């Protein structure tokens, strides 16, 4: 007998002994695997807020478990297996690097549902979900293009991956739309989280004339650097970072996983869960725009809010043609909306749009 059948049997047994979920006597167990500490104040922190929201929403009917600081690779595979063995019915794996481990473990536990964040591999019992953060970037770009006086916008980028590149493009397009003279200065810090380095990056950008700094890294260090420098605007990332408002933080992109986590947990309870690929944005509340403070002129704020509303209703897509690639070739024709997948799709975006200077590092 191979382990696969043993595991399946064990999972089944666990399912049986812990009581049929549907009849509501035993709590549904929901597992979360985190790549960082819950105290990182950014990525993992927001996923944990989502977990707490699930507890809040279902009370006695759910039990949540989590393991933090789980390295990608064999350690994550073990943690997922362990959760499944201990009777988890639904497991959220919250880092891109968990993709192959999630698929491997899911194959061994056909009755356990898995949800993998930011990946692209699905299976019968593996859903993928991610957020359209670029919608928030578009709003930031619009505000940034309006409020910059030096016409220099600094951008702290983490790693050259599609998600970050999408963010740069979305922000640039909307900044340039309202301010053709705007220039983006982009620095790649090769980390998601290193407060000292992020602070230095922010300072460098400010010293080189940027009076708006966007960040795609998770710490508040750039906010503090902007506050110390004075006269510089920033946007919160991952978390609201309101403690730095009303200036320098004039708005923020918040990862709000709670609605999705609650909905998926409910789906498992109802027996309606099926494998889906979710890529939600402002429309479902997965991406939230933090309060736009009064430091932003009222008309700009009104425009930004209108844009948010248009994206919420689906009337507006941030990548609507005509848009050329950096080399001048046509990416989207007039009125054409970017597709999610396929060649030149958003999911695998690896080029800058026209007007962004510099090269994407290899």
């Amino acid at each position, binding site marked *: 007998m*191979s*382990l*696969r059948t*043993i*595991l399946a049997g*064990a999972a089944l047994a666990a399912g049986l002994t812990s009581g049929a979920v549907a009849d509501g006597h035993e709590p549904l167990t929901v*597992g979360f695997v985190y790549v960082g*500490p*819950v105290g990182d104040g950014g990525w993992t922190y927001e996923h944990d807020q989502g977990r707490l929201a699930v507890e809040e929403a279902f009370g006695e009917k759910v039990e949540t*478990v*989590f*393991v*933090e*600081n*789980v*390295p*990608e*690779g*064999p*350690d994550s*595979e*073990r*943690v997922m*297996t*362990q*959760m499944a*063995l*201990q009777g988890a019915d639904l497991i959220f794996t919250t880092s*891109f*690097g968990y993709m*192959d481990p999630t698929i491997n473990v899911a194959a061994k536990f056909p009755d356990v549902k898995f949800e993998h964040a930011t990946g*692209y591999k699905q299976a019968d019992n593996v859903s993928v979900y991610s957020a359209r953060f670029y919608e928030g970037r578009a709003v930031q770009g619009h505000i940034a293009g309006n409020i910059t006086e030096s016409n220099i916008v600094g951008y702290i980028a983490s*790693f*050259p*991956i*599609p998600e970050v*590149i999408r963010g740069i493009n979305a922000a640039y397009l909307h900044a340039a739309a309202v301010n053709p003279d705007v220039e983006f200065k982009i620095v790649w810090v*090769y980390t998601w989280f290193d407060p000292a380095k992020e602070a230095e990056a922010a300072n460098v950008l400010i010293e080189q004339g940027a009076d708006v700094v966007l960040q795609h890294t998770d710490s508040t260090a750039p906010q503090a650097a902007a506050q110390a420098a004075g006269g510089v605007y920033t946007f919160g990332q991952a978390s609201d970072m309101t403690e730095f408002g009303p200036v320098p933080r004039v708005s923020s992109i918040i990862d709000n996983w709670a609605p999705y986590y609650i909905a998926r947990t409910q789906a498992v309870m109802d027996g309606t869960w099926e494998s889906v690929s979710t890529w939600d944005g402002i429309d479902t509340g997965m991406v939230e725009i933090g309060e736009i403070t009064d430091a932003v002129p009222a008309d700009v704020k009104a425009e930004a809010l209108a844009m948010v509303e248009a994206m919420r209703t689906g009337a507006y897509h941030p990548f609507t043609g005509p848009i050329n690639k950096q080399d001048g070739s046509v990416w989207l024709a007039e009125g054409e909306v970017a597709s999610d997948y396929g060649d030149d799709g958003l*999911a*695998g*975006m*690896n080029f800058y749009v026209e007007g962004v200077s510099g090269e994407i*590092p*290899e």
Partner: protein
Amino acid sequence: MITLEKRPEPSQFWVFATPLLSVLLTMVVGGMLFAALGQNPFVAMRTIFLDPLFSEFSWFYRPQLFIKGAPLVLIAIGLSFGFRAGVWNIGAEGQYIIGAICGAAVGLAFYPMEARWLIFPLMVLAGALGGWAWAMIPGILRTRFGTNEILVSLMLVYVAEQLLASMALGPLRNPDGMGFPGSRNLSQYPSAANLELIQESAMHWGVVAAFIAVIFAYVALARHLFGFHVRLAGQAPRAANFAGVNPNRLILICLGLSGTLAGLAGMFEVSGPAGQISIDFNVGYGFTAIIVAFLGRLHPIGILLAAGLMALTYIGGEIAQSNLGLPGAAIQLLQGMLLFFLLAVDVLTNYRITWQRGRA
């Protein structure tokens, strides 16, 4: 007052008693910590130290000890020779990374050719050579210029980490990976995969290599002239000179050996359990192995046991986090504590505590 008196011979009793004593001390102090965090200390300790071995699901956890322990054993065995001879390679993490990069690069270069008989052995060779070459840098600098190998090998860890990032983002990036960093998954490429030898046993080639390394190290230390030279160089460098030990050769051999084994560990990890080169591929095995080597008293069997204990606390710690809701930080603290106690009570093995009235 209390003084320490060196024993002529390490105490056989304490050699075995100290590990037990330190685990016991950790349980007591750690238990108090967990009680302070509002946990039942007995349940917490049982979860961490016993559940991986004897619980409903221990059939899954036990093989996991091999996966977690094998790279530690492999690296620590290599290091132990150098540590005995006074050659301090603390850059095994770097050699581990380079071994993985070289092994993976060879495997990926052949993708998608099917020739396991050729590709996998070549990868093993490349991993070993890569680790060896990375360790030769501090080796040659030490023997040619007298440069301190502790520091050079440590510096090379950071260089290797940067190299890893550039490989994951550049040359080794998966062309079908939607633009994400990280290489193809080698464990899904049959010709290059470090597969399980017995299905679902977690026994991959790295585990086999670790056991072979333990046996060879045991034989070398106990029976072979090389082992004698190593011990002599560490205990009495001048006597070693008279015995005809060439110190430079010894340094190069010790560093080369530890680099080779660390490189192998990296290669087996990247082609098996981890599967791919990614920015965060290394999780500190090279540094943990240093602790393992010392906990194992630089003895092959001791290293095997120490690696098992470390693996146990990792796996048990994860169970405690998810089952009891203990914060990950508390587990880290407990590990640190366990290491402190193990290192502290070791004094009893080599020294006798005596009471002396006044100043002797």
